[in-house]
C-alpha cells in the first residue's frame, strides 16, 4: 500500500471515530477549562501579574489538557485493540507513528485554539495580528514536539498498571526545554516584541531530535508491546 495513502486513511479513520464519540475532545476541553479557572484563583488575575505569566498559564493549560489526549492515543477503549488493529493493518510502522502524531495533534490543536480564545476572553487579553500569527506558529511548532514525544511514551505506558501517572512522570521533565522556549516566545508575542532566534532554535531542535528518535524507537516499542503481552 502506498505509504502516503495509508497515512491519510489512518488519520481519516481516526477522526471519523473521534468525531462520532468526541470523548477525548470533550475531556481535553473540560481539563483546559478547569485549569484556567484554577489559575484564576491561584494567582491574582490582574494585568500586572498577567504580563509576566500569560505565556506560562497558556502553556501549562495546553500541556495538562493535551496530555489527556496523548494518554488516549493508543488506549482506545482500554483493551489494547486499537494498537493491535493498527499493527495488523498492512502499513509500515513509520506510517502508523506519523498518522498517530497527526491525529493526536489535530485534537490537541483544536483544544489549544479553544483555550487561547477562552484565555483572551476570560483574562481580558488582546493580541495584534502579527502577535497572533507568532503565537499560532509557536504553538503549532511546539505542539508537534510535545505530541511526537508524547505518542512514543503513550505507546509504552497505555498498557501498564498506573500507566497514566507514569506517562506524566516521564513526559513532563522531557518537555521542560520546549516549555521554557514556548513560554518565553508567547510572552514576547503578547507584549508585541520580536521573539528572536533562540526560542525558534530550541523548539526546532526539540522537534527534529524527538521526531527522528521517535520514528526509530517506535519500532522497538511496538516490538516490546507485541512480545510482552
Amino acid at each position, binding site marked *: 500500500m502506498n505509504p502516503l495513502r495509508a497515512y491519510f486513511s489512518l488519520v481519516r479513520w481516526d477522526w471519523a471515530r473521534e468525531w462520532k464519540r468526541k470523548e477525548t475532545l470533550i475531556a481535553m476541553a473540560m481539563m483546559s477549562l478547569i485549569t484556567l479557572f484554577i489559575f484564576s484563583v491561584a494567582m491574582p488575575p490582574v494585568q500586572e501579574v498577567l504580563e509576566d505569566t500569560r505565556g506560562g498559564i497558556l502553556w501549562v493549560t495546553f500541556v495538562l489538557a493535551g496530555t489527556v489526549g496523548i494518554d488516549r492515543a493508543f488506549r482506545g477503549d482500554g483493551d489494547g485493540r486499537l494498537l493491535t488493529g493498527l499493527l495488523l493493518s498492512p502499513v509500515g510502522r513509520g506510517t502508523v507513528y506519523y498518522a498517530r502524531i497527526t491525529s493526536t495533534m489535530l485534537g490537541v490543536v483544536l483544544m489549544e485554539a479553544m483555550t487561547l480564545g477562552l484565555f483572551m476572553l476570560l483574562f481580558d487579553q488582546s493580541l495584534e495580528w502579527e502577535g497572533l500569527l507568532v503565537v499560532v506558529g509557536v504553538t503549532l511548532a511546539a505542539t508537534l514536539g510535545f505530541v511526537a*514525544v508524547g505518542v*512514543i*511514551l503513550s505507546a*509504552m505506558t497505555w*498498557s*501498564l*498498571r*498506573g500507566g497514566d501517572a*507514569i506517562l506524566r*512522570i*516521564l513526559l*513532563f*521533565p*522531557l518537555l*521542560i*526545554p*520546549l516549555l*521554557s*522556549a514556548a*513560554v*518565553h516566545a508567547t510572552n514576547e508575542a503578547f507584549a508585541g516584541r520580536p521573539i528572536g532566534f*533562540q*526560542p525558534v*532554535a*530550541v523548539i526546532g*531542535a*526539540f522537534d527534529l*531530535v*524527538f521526531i527522528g*528518535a521517535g520514528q526509530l*524507537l517506535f519500532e*522497538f*516499542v511496538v*516490538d*516490546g*508491546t507485541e*512480545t*510482552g*503481552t
Partner: protein
Amino acid sequence: MPDQRSLPVRVLDHPASYVAHGLLALAGLFYFGYLVATWVPFAIKQLKSSYLIFFFHFPNALNTFVFFGGCLGGSVLFLITKQPRWDRWARCSAEVGVMAGFVLLATGMTWAKAAWDHWWVWDDPRLMSAAVMMLTYLGYLTLQAGIEDPHKRRTFSAVFGVLAFLNIPIVHKAIEWFGETSHPPKLDGLSDPSIIATRWFGVLVFLILYLLLLRWRQSRLTTTEEIEDALDRIRRLEEAPR
C-alpha cells in the same frame, strides 16, 4: 559443576576483587581529602572558603554525566542485542548517576546558600539543568520499577534511556538562554595547574567509588534476575500438561 565463566568474569566476581576495589576507593578518598585540605589556607585567603565545596561539586557533576552516558550506552546496546545484561548495565548506571546527581545538587545548593544566601535559585541554568536531568532519570527508575513483564520493562526502559539522554543538551541550552546566569564566575587562581590536578584527581576518585557501587548493584541485580528466571521456569514446568 565446574565454573564455566570466563577468567575476567570470575576474577571480577570474586569477593577479593570487591575488597581490593573498596580499599583503592578508600585510599583515593583519603588522599583526595588531604589534597583538598592543603588548599584550605589559599582558599580562605584568596577565594571564598565556600569555594572548597567546588572540589566535590565538579567531580560529581562529571560523574553524573559519565553514568547517564553509561545508561545511554546500555540502552542502545540492549535495543540492538536484546541481551538482559545491557539492561542491567543501563539500570545500574542510572541508579549510580542519580546518586552522583544528588551529591551534585546537594553541593550546588550548599554553594548557593554560602554565595547568595539562598538554598535554591531558580534562574541558575546549571543547577536547574541538573535538577531537570535528575527528574528525568528518576522517571527512568520509576519506569524500571513499574513494569513486571521483563521484556516490556527492558525494552521500554531502553527506549526512555535514549530519549532522556537526547534531551540533556536541549535542556541545558534552553535554561541557559531563558534563565539568568548566576553560576560562580571564573575566579583568579583557579587556572593554577595544581588546583586543576586536584579537581581531576577528585573526578578519578569518585569514578572509582561509583564504579564499585555499580559493580555491587549489578552483581546483586544479576543474582535477583537469575533467581526470578529460575522460579519462572519452575512455574512453567509445573503448569505444563503432563
